[in-house]
């Protein structure tokens, strides 16, 4: 329960971002989920780890948003931060508005009532997410009794079996234990367990990473059906860009605790604005790949990230200003927004700021 070194973040470090066409507060036009300036810091005794540092994005009903980035960029922390599902040593600040209600200040109890029936969470590794000592039936009974106690035993059973059947789990296996299922089946059970409560928003944290491609396709199909049939909003955390291109309406690219580019998935993929996005896309392997590309270096240590633009030590297009000033978010055409000095604003760049950053400095930063 140690406080992170320094005071908890109270105001966002970067200017409060305003998404294009920002809807009015609480009105009917408000998106399902609106995150503004969210920060999640982990206290580790010394300086805090700024896992999520001033992140803003929105998800509308029935919309699928992909969240991509390398490992260690704070994607999973962001997903859990929305639900308030953070360890004791984490501090969250900023705003997470779900249907107009700010979740950051909610009590444990209020958050608990929300988890499941409103916002569901699917995890990366299905093998260990079910309690090995309880049958599948026990898991469903527990979940439904907590959130919908008015359902009778028969109704609970019916709902559970229906949801499982939709995921392709036959009713004959309802009374079996988790160890009697394969990984893909367990992930479908986990999804069914989230869906049985009919949440309006689903956060899927790399739901297919641990599974083979056939099962991956099944799971993605399930998630796509969900959106069509129930208008469920979906935050799909992944580092598989192929999945994003296929399944997502919009995509947010995260680097070192911040969202560096966001926009319509097709647009971001066809015309990536941020050098990091470009580098990520170049690193993707496909049938036409002739050589392997990778981004030199690794995501920075989030205790003491590089000053100003956090990507500048690894950026091929880095300019002098990138090391001096935080980038300002710029809206491009078609709902695309990017935080990179390459896109201006011109009048904020100081004289000589547009000079390329000297190569030697880049090399040194890479090693660090």
């Amino acid at each position: 329960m140690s406080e992170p070194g320094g005071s908890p973040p109270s105001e966002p470090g970067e200017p409060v971002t305003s998404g294009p066409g920002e809807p009015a507060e609480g009105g009917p036009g408000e998106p399902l989920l609106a995150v503004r300036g969210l920060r999640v810091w982990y206290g580790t005794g010394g300086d805090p780890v700024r896992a999520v540092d001033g992140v803003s994005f929105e998800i509308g009903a029935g919309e699928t948003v992909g969240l991509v980035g390398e490992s260690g960029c704070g994607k999973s922390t962001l997903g859990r931060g929305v639900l308030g599902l953070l360890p004791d040593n984490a501090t969250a600040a900023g705003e997470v508005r779900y249907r107009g209600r700010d979740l950051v200040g909610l009590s444990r109890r209020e958050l608990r009532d929300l988890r499941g029936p409103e916002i569901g969470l699917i995890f990366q590794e299905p093998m260990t997410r079910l309690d090995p000592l309880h049958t599948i039936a026990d898991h469903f009974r527990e979940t439904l009794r907590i959130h919908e106690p008015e359902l009778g035993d028969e109704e609970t059973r019916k709902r559970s079996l229906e949801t499982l059947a939709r995921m392709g789990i036959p009713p004959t296996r309802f009374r079996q234990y988790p160890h009697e299922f394969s990984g893909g089946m367990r992930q479908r059970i986990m999804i069914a367990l989230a869906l049985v409560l009919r949440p309006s928003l689903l956060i899927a944290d790399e739901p297919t990473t641990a599974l083979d491609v056939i099962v991956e396709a099944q799971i993605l199909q399930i998630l796509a059906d969900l959106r069509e049939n129930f208008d469920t909003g979906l935050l799909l955390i992944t580092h598989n860009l192929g999945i994003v291109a296929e399944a997502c309406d919009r995509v947010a690219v995260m680097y070192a605790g911040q969202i560096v580019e966001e926009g319509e998935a097709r647009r971001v993929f066809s015309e990536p604005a941020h050098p990091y996005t470009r580098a990520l896309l170049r690193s993707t392997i496909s049938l036409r790949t002739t050589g392997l590309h990778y981004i030199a270096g690794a995501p920075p240590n989030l205790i003491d990230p590089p000053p100003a633009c956090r990507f500048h030590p690894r950026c091929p297009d880095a300019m002098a200003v990138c090391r001096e000033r935080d980038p300002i978010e710029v809206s491009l055409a078609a709902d695309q927004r990017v935080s990179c000095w390459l896109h201006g604003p011109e009048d904020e760049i100081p004289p000589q700021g547009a000079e390329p950053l000297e190569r030697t400095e880049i090399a040194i930063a890479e090693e660090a």
Partner: protein
Amino acid sequence: MNAHGTSLRRYALTRVALAIPTVLILLTMVFLLMRVAPGDPIQSALGGRLSQQELDQRRAAAGFDKPILEQYVEYIGDVFTLDLGTTLTDNRTVTSIIVDNGTATLELTVTAFLITLVVGISVGLLAGRYRDTPIDLGGRLFGIIIYAAPVFFLGFLAQLLFGSVLGWLPTSGRASPVVNFELDTVTHFYLIDSLITGNFSAFWDCVQHLILPAVTLGLVISGVLIRLVRVNLLQTMKGDYVEAARARGVPERRIVLHHAFRNAMVPVVTVAGLQFAILLGGAVLTEQTFNWPGIGSELIRYLDERDYIAVQGIITIFALAVVIISLLIDMVTAFIDPRVRY
């Protein structure tokens, strides 16, 4: 629950079947160990006190004059008919040792074990649940100190305080002499006997006699359990399924008791069961301290007197008890954890 029921039953039956060869191997080892010791059992137990002719008679009566293989077959047969012979030194049947002293030990150890379970699990659970709080610190400290304290030392302190200074509880024996004399023995468990014969003053007397030794022994053993339960709970609280349950909005209390605690108990059951097995033989110190007429004290006495038949009989009983306890451990583990069932 159908699949659940049959696989558990099949598991239980298999375990019981597998216990039979275990018992045979154990009995063979007991038999061999008793014969490996040099010298003639009758000579060493009774030599010098009886004439050579009488010694030969005793030797024939005990069967020591027969070939070793024949003795072995006889021994195994005796075990299965529960007739373990008559002691060399005081002409008691081994069966009567078990009935009189074995029940005293069992009464003491079962009560002590219940205290161990209650104290060990509840303190361990609280310490693990409220990690790094004063509750945790107190629980851990209690566990370490109680574990490090020798049982006779703790016993003396308890006798001094509750017996001599405060005068609340008797410090020695299984019951007052009058009760010992008057009580109708049916099961030879005094608590049960006094209850079924409706002798409530005797029951109260026995309870009073049981408190100090049982609590002393129970607390000493609980130290291990406190640490084990705490560490396992801390481990399971970090489990993926615990986080997943939180993400489904399961209340924390239910997460701790239904998910983390149950999973933490799987390894605890094994250790607790083995502790109980050790308790049966290891209660000797407590029995000596509180002058409890248990089987451990008898074993030591017969060892001193080199009474081979008595020692062999008592050790056989211990061996059987260990097999039964490990069978019970398997059953409880399988009941809790479906993964170990067939």
